[in-house]
């Protein structure tokens, strides 16, 4: 079972307490009525589907109830870092420790 650190509870807890909530840092168009069909399609459906460090949302649904963000390596399934919702997107190099 994956162990996930909730940044609000400050505890590393079993995956069963959490729910996955899709890619993180997807910004809703500020004026949706002015978005073109293509922009709206991209906002709703188009995701990065990366191989490697993936920025994603999780919710501590059977716990504090909060949404938060995580960077997870989609190859190893390892959580690189978790941080509160609304927090700045950490740079990949900072969370993987690589310099490429």
């Amino acid at each position: 079972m994956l162990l996930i650190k909730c940044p609000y509870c400050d505890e590393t807890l079993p995956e069963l307490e959490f729910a996955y909530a899709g890619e993180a840092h997807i910004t809703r168009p500020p004026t949706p009525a002015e978005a073109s069909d293509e922009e709206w399609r991209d906002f709703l459906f188009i995701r990065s589907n990366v191989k490697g460090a993936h920025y994603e949302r999780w919710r501590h649904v059977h716990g504090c109830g909060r949404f938060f963000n995580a960077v997870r390596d989609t190859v190893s399934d390892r959580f690189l870092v978790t941080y509160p919702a609304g927090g700045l997107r950490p740079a990949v190099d900072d969370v993987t420790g690589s310099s490429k």
Partner: protein
Amino acid sequence: MTQLPTHFESGQLSATSAARVTVVEPMARFSLRAGQGDVTAISEALDLALPTKIGQRTKAGATEAMCLGPDEWVIIAPDSEAVRLESACTAIYDQAPHSLTAISDREITVRIDGPRAADLLTLGCPRDLDAILPNEGRRTVFDGVTVVLWRDAEQEFRLDVWRSFAPHALSLLVTGCTELALE
């Protein structure tokens, strides 16, 4: 699997050499949501210092509070205290906006104690229970259902389960009581 009725009266559900599961008397329960800046004012009004760390509990008289999230608490008290708590919060609503919701009937509480009470909980709860110290608690999951777990002593717990999920969750506890006693 033990089949339980959907209506629960207070009293013993199961008692073996491993553990006992007892439905406790009804009580008043409130869900409190408030911002960090208003916690002090609400604490003063309730005459109960609200804990600010998730999982911590405080008690004043028979009224108990546990911090469930960054802006969320559960408060339990005898039925006779409910009106006092509600009016105390109403009185400071303008200065310290918050949400106080009566949830008394939403959940039922069972007491789980006995020499293997903690083992019994591990049947449905994936948490490391050693990380929850006596006089702490957490909201967590038990057999797929969200529950609030209160640890009162090394081998004594209370479990708040939503009423509609109670037959499911408590059935596992009753079955587990019997199975652990056979080991």
